[in-house]
């Protein structure tokens, strides 16, 4: 470790925040760009599965809540791209990497939303898992990222409560509605567990990221915490977690549960999830179809600037 690197690590160890203009190791910068960028991409791709039900929301109030939520997600994307930009990479560059398949987004968004109950389950489980990941990141070492996380966590926990409220309504509703809720849980349970990533035993980058406080907990810790939090919520709803192995382990003070099918996880990562092509295709289409729009705005700005400074322009 060079003296610079040592000093850097000591600042982190003391709990100081690193700010964009300060010195940082290249690896720190790169890891952060990847992590923040992926998170940003997840927010904007994450608009799609929920956007899928806006036009079909069953009441005006639910429609309004869903619209507000999807709008928040776009907003989160914006904060995060801004945080990434402080590291010297532009939003357009990051988007291009996404569109060319060079950067990932959370694989959960490659699953379809098939019934209205998914609007509940996504809020409850997917936002729940996201929060579990994000709450510790409020204390991450990189200042802009930490501040973005603080804003985002506040809204996300609101979303999670709304999602759970949808589930409560469904579970207190007709037998069909309750069946819909159970079906959503069945489909989304394991993909939600996958959101924490494979076991840390199999992860190479984890140790360095944890030292840098870019990653605050191990994947397995967070997954356990998520299961322990979620099982009683499911019980309260009267729903059954689709895991026959699930049971309380008094000794460890948490639930034992089945691992998700990691071969499915790697399939989805490799592009073979149910919706990978549709999701990325939708984003690329939005971007390509909108090129004229962005170019139009740039051209106008240039004209306006030229008109404002007619002498300087000559």
């Amino acid at each position, binding site marked *: 470790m060079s003296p610079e690197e040592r000093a850097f690590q000591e600042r982190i160890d003391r709990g100081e925040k690193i700010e964009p203009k300060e010195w940082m190791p290249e690896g720190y910068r790169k890891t952060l760009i990847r992590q923040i960028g992926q998170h940003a991409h997840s927010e904007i791709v994450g*608009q799609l599965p929920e956007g899928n039900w806006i036009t079909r929301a069953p009441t*005006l109030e639910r429609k*309004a809540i869903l619209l507000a939520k999807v*709008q928040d997600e776009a907003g989160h994307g914006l904060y995060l*791209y801004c945080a990434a930009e402080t590291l010297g990479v532009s939003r357009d560059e990051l988007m291009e990497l996404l569109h060319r398949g060079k950067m990932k987004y959370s694989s959960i968004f490659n699953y379809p939303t098939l019934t209205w109950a998914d609007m509940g389950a996504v809020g409850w489980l997917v936002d729940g898992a996201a929060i579990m990941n994000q709450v510790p990141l409020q204390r991450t070492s990189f200042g802009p990222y930490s501040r973005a996380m603080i804003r985002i966590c506040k809204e996300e926990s609101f979303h999670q409560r709304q999602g759970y409220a949808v589930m409560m309504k469904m579970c207190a509703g007709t037998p069909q509605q309750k069946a819909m809720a159970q079906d959503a849980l069945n489909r989304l349970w394991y993909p939600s567990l996958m959101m924490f990533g494979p076991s840390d035993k199999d992860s190479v980058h984890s140790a360095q990221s944890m030292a840098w406080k870019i990653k605050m907990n191990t994947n397995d810790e967070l997954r356990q915490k998520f299961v322990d939090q979620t099982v009683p919520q499911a019980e309260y709803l009267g729903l059954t977690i689709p895991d026959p192995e699930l049971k309380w382990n008094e000794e460890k003070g948490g639930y034992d549960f089945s691992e998700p099918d990691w071969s499915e996880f790697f399939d989805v990562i490799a592009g073979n999830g149910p919706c990978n092509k549709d999701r990325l295709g939708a984003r690329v289409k*939005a971007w390509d179809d909108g090129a*004229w729009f962005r*170019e139009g705005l740039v051209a106008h700005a240039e004209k306006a600037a030229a008109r404002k400074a007619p002498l300087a322009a000559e």
Partner: protein
Amino acid sequence: QDAFLEFLLRLGDTTLILGHRVSEWCGHSPALEEDIALANVALDLIGQTQMWLGLAAEVEGKGRTADDLAYLRDAWDFRNLLLVERPNGDFGHTLMRQFLFDAWHFELLNALAASTDARVGEIAAKALKEVAYHLERSSDLVIRLGDGTEESNRRMREALEALWAYTGEMFTADEKDRAVAEAGIAPDPESLRAAWEATVRDVLEQATLAVPASTFAHKGGKRGVHTEHLGYILAEMQFLQRAYPGSSW
């Protein structure tokens, strides 16, 4: 009474259907800022729908709710303007539709804020703040894209030409419009035209777009004779309420 109900349905159905159309863009717009702005506009419109249709249900007095009106009527019962059910087209088309609508919506709400019916006045005053912002934003974008590249100008011009014939309906009055106007509940539609035209002329001029000469106007939405598009909108929008009648969501 009857005319008042009709007036409220015309307004509430119009904001509902436009909110639906705008919301179709969620996650598919050309820039993240637009995703946010469009979701916001749709959200405002749906919020206004809740108020207008809520009042309509109250005025009707048959125990129906705003949701019943939104989700359990078929196309021929809808009273929205044809303009708002037009397909989104490209993003320029959507923006132009929004601008032509906002410029009218703003004038209408401005007049409604002085309605003899206090409930109408209150809703209008609340909505006016939102719509003032919608108009500011859509005007600005129409100007920038009209006076942008050759392509953005062409797209905005084509959108304007395609939509122009759907603007006249905003200003044509029937006996029901006249009845609410006489009661001081709402302005005579025709009375909004001059201010609307002034806004449109001003913005289009800055956008280097010519105001179309044609005065032909498609009509029918306000009396339930729609385009073929509305049926598809409703089939999608109403699916859950139709498929699971009587459920609570």
